[in-house]
């Protein structure tokens, strides 16, 4: 079981951040291990992940509390995983604290790759993604 929690401080208001993250169309851009996204019915997403040399499809059930929380839990896939993304307005509404919790239990899915490396790699990817998020939201605002 791997569980990782990371916090990012984004220079955007909570609305912009929440809407960007909750838009499944942005998933491929900001979550680097996600290569394809398909919106299914009943707030479900079908995601193709590419991570540590493995490509695998998962179906995630998405639940949200608008501008506050976004949760995802796998309903299909080779191993269970889930995540929580919490949003908190800070700096008088000019910035957002973004907390990202992720949990997975890959078992022997990654084979010979040590769990420690899987965990570290996951941490690094999440960190990179969270850090990139700021930039990506800015770019999306500009394009708008």
């Amino acid at each position, binding site marked *: 079981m791997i569980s990782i929690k990371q916090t990012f401080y984004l220079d955007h208001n909570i609305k912009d951040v929440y809407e960007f993250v909750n838009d499944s169309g942005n998933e491929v851009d900001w979550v680097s291990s996600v290569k394809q996204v398909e919106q299914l019915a009943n707030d479900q997403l079908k995601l193709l992940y*590419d991570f*540590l*040399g*493995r*490509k695998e499809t998962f179906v995630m059930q998405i639940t949200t509390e608008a501008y506050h929380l976004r949760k995802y839990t796998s309903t299909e896939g080779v191993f269970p995983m889930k995540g929580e993304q919490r949003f908190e307005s800070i700096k008088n509404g000019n910035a957002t604290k973004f907390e990202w919790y992720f949990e997975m239990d890959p078992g022997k899915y990654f*084979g*010979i*790759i*040590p769990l*420690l*490396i899987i965990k*570290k*790699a996951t941490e*690094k*990817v999440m960190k*990179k993604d969270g850090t990139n998020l700021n930039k990506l939201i800015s770019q999306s605002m500009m394009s708008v």
Partner: protein
Amino acid sequence: MKTDFNIDQNTSQSYPLSKEQEGLWFLQQLDPDISAYNVVFGGKIEGHLDIQTLERTFNFLIERHDVLNTTFETIEGKPYQNFEKNIVKGFDIQLNTGVSDIEEIVKCIDKDTKKPFNLSTDRLIRANLYQKNDQQHILVVTAHHIAIDLWGLAILLNELRLMYTAFKTNETPQLKPITANFRNHVNDQKALLFSEKGDSLLTYWKEKLSGELPVLDFPIDKVRPKLLTYNGKVERFSLDQELSNELVELAKQESVTLYMLLLGAYRILLQRYTNQEDILIGVPVAGRGKKETRNIIGNFVNTIVLRSSLDTSRNFSDFVKDIRKDIIDGMKHQEYPFSELVKELLPDRDPARSPLIQTAFAWERLPVLDDVMASLGTSQDSLLDIELFDVDQQEGQFEISLEMGNEVDGELHGLFKYNTDLLSSETVVQVIQHFKNLLRSIVKNPELSIAKLPILQDAEQEEILNIWQEKPQEFPKFNTLHQGFEAMVVKNPNAIAAVYDNTEITYDELNKKANALAHHLKSLGAKKGTLIGLCVDRSIEVLVGIMGILKSGGAYVPLDPKNPKERLELIIDDAKTPIIITQGKEKIAIVDDQIEIVDLDMDWPLIETNSDENLDLVTGKDELAYVIYTSGSTGKPKGVLNTHHNVLRLFTATDHWYKFSENDVWTLFHTYAFDVSVWEIWGALLYGGKLAVVSYEVSRTPELFYDLLVDKKVTVLSQTPSAFKQLIEYEVSLAAPKDLSLSYVVFGGEALDIPALKPWVERHGDQSPKLINMYGITETTVHTTYREIVKEDLLSPKSMVGQPITDMKIHLLDGELNPVPYGVTGEIYVGGEGLAVKYLNREELTAERFIKDPYSTDANARLYKSGDLAQLYKNGDLKYIGRADTQVKIRGFRIELGEIQTLLTAHPSIKNAVVTTKNINDNDIRIVAYYSIEEEKEVTDKDLRNYLVNRLPDYMIPSIFMEMESFALTINGKIDYRKLPMPEIKRDDVELILPRDVVELELQKIWEKTLKISPIGVKDDFFQLGGHSMLAVSIMSDIKLLFGDSFAISVLFQYPTIEKLGEIIREKKEIAKGSPLVRLQKGKSDKHPVFCIHPIGGNVFCYSPMVESIKDEYEIYGLQVPYLYEDGTPHITVEDIATDYIDNIKSVQEEGPYHLVGYCFGGLIATEIAHQLKEQGDQIGTLNLLDTRSPLYDDAEEFDDAILLSWFARDLALPYGKTLTISPEELRECESVDKMFELVLSRAKNEHIVTDDINQDQMRRYLDVYISNGTALSLYEAKPYNGRINLLRAVHEPLIEQIGINLGWDRCEVKDLKVYDVPGNHNTMMYNPNAIVLAGTLQKVLAEYKEVETAVLL
């Protein structure tokens, strides 16, 4: 018989050369400037000379003898002579009218006659005319020996006079008709070589010159050039009428010719100068046996080889008859060409020496020349009145040669020709004098044995015997050593007498402890002369023990516990020591329970109850002080008895040189079982100085010992040259020498290789400290001679040992105890106050070695026959040569090879054994044991080594063992040492396995450098490769420098292979605990280091070939993943890796500019390092990517464990230039991932990619690093780089269109991308020969940066 005979089928004008001509032609091609084969005639011409007529005469003669107008050409690689392609130009006489002084003329002649001939273009004869005035000329004719010999020159001269007169008088000349030409000779010679007669001649010479061919060992004055030279001079001499007549008479009496007699005398002279019984002398013969050859000009001279055995116990009368027989036999076989003989015999070629013969004896009395000479200057019929004018010629063909045969007014004249690059004229003048003395001795008593024939004159002998003027001697103030010490105790009781580690002892404390021990020993029965064993480890207790024993009246017998117990038992048994002092009884296994053991640890509470006052024992100066055992030829060591006086006078006699004082700090570097320790101990304690006792480990670890010299401020250092060499090597490895306090470095124990001191002298000069070479032996009390080594001595390889110290004397004597001449090798006989009393229990050996001094007026005076050889120079300087017998000195230790041989032969499986020394490489002398095995027995080299290790000190263990089926014997039935093969360094059946990681690679480099063998495999045994303890010291020193770890020498005995040594180095982990830095090359300049970052897999091994080819001015570091060899979690992002590596890079280079190199994935890390350094404000020198793809290119393909392990196997092998292919399909057949992993491990072992004993954990670490690197690679993203990137691109790597020819870097926002093509594909670019180009390209890039940097600074 040769079969490809084909006589003169040339229809062209080109003819083959005679064999003599071939030899000369070849020499001239080798060195076109040779003039040693210019044949010269000089004549004084009185009266009017018509130069035009003289020129006309020469032209006539050149036309008559076409051999003088021959040119030589090469056709299809073979030389030919062309008699018809004449040089059309008329013959000019070079007229010199500018000089009249005869000395000036002689100089001009010398210069003119030594101008070389160009055999392709020059006419092979020329004439110079030196005009003193209208009536006086000197004519000098110079011709190349390829065209003419002395006989031919006489013909030419005779015809010159006749023709000149004929032209002047318009008369018809009376010239003898020419009935043959030189071509006939060439054909005849060729026919001979292909005839049965030719075979028969060759058989004779092969038999005559069978076996090992001797090389002349004439003592030379200069450093022998590496390549043979031909520079020479001549020294002329004459024998007075009386001696000449006596020689003629003696020749008649002995029924030999004068020629034979003089040749025999020369043979004896050479034996005296060389000590060689077997010598080859070249003897030229005219080669004009056929009548028709006698009137033609050409080179017919051949050389035959005289080889006469010389038994010096026989008399001259008998010997000269042997010479007669040899000469007559040789003459009968003279037709076989010498140059062909050399080809057939194929003697060992030494480019510094002429083949086969290095000396010659020529008899220049040719019948034709006699006739011509007789008529010179006397003929009334000739208008060309020529009188002989001697001109030196053809010198330098040999090292030394003698020409005789000329006789003037009843006096025999002769001349010695010699090579001036080897000998001085002074020496040759001495040789002439000795030749004359020898001839006088022979005529005086031809019945005297040859060995007894004196060659020195009485005055010369007196001069040599007394060359070192006796100097006023001072005598020691004390009778005993301990009295001298006690005087220092009184003078300064609180001064530090000795220090060991951090323990110090004052003079007073040492005295009191020694007194207590002495009282105790007395209570146990010690009295005057009692031999008391001392068996303690190096420590202050050594001094307490020695001093206590001496104070008790006894003499100490060193029993160094480092020696095998069996050897110690032999010593105890021989010395019959009733008491042994030890420190821990386990040090010595005493079988005799009558021996009293004094344990300085256990018994000290009892010992210290004794009085600590000085004893009132009155001891005489001639009482024994110690018995030191040296190697003995019978298989048992022999004890040398030395007195207190022997030691005390050593310091008195050398005091005027050294002036030692209480301010001096000495080291006790050597074991107290080696007599140099006597010098070290008493040099300190008799002067009130301080003695730093050096532990065994420190003495074997140069860097620790060097630090000790610094820390303890040592002023006087005694060293064997071998040990000091290690110290020099260590110091040279330091950027600058540390603060040494040395006043003297005193060498002893073995021959000093003086040029090896150069690096030291360059750093320290020759005065601070002074470097003193002292020859000495245990039997003469440590040191016998004194020689200060100064800078100028470094130019010569001679081991100069100087002159005897004041109260000693040395004679260099031959086998008859006669002094040898200056420069000639003789055995060192030592006399004087330092002579030991005798050998213990070896009366016969004592009588043999300590002989009555035949040159002393004191009836009791003795000389010690040392067995060492030396030469004496006229300035009184002695040059050490080596040993006369089977005793050798290796690393300062005297070793009787017989002792090893006796022990080896005693092994139950050994049938026969011979132990000798061989020079393996430059001055690398090793002990080699040759052995044969009893039938049905088996024994390995290792068994024999272990057998000897238990019985002999390590310095006596042969470094190479060689099994022989049988031994070649001499005619006397003794083993023929000359036929023992050169030892082979054996690998047994061990496969050559090359290094598999950086540790092994570095160890391999160290081993190859030290053992001078390449390649060495990781499983090769150090000792099988000829390693010995001193080489082990060197290896451990290098390991310390490179890896930072100190290991005891004994580690090599436990772990004698690179593989095993590598394991313990890795286990120690201190080399790189958590540090990725690995020094790949030590730099020799202040240039900024180069950092090479590992590719995927974390190993920097792949850089080895490239680094090998980079000039060593660059310090080169590798950055590899430390977790390859230790537990830990590798980084999984390039950014983290870069941050970590920057910390380490800055630990060796604090500030930029930084030079970064990265191969493959390493290039990405290098780029990230550059990014981060720039962000920190540091400067990047060069950023060099070796075929690294940009991170834009993402070819991430899906993989499972089988694919991953397949890639891992492939990439594991790559750094070693190997291939390990295991397909995913094959891996998938394994039932589990663990089995897959096992398969990879097993295949990697089979391919020797990993060590046999690698465990799963280690292999797992490799894999984890591999995966981590792979993860980091997949996560890294491109970013703009505001600087220059040098991309060294593998040109043979197939192009991937998606990435492009610049590997994607041109799309990465790089400010300045410079691309260099290097040969090879992505893998092979890193291996030779491609790695050489890669290294060159990288150096070019680095050099360009340096230039730009310099320009900017300017």
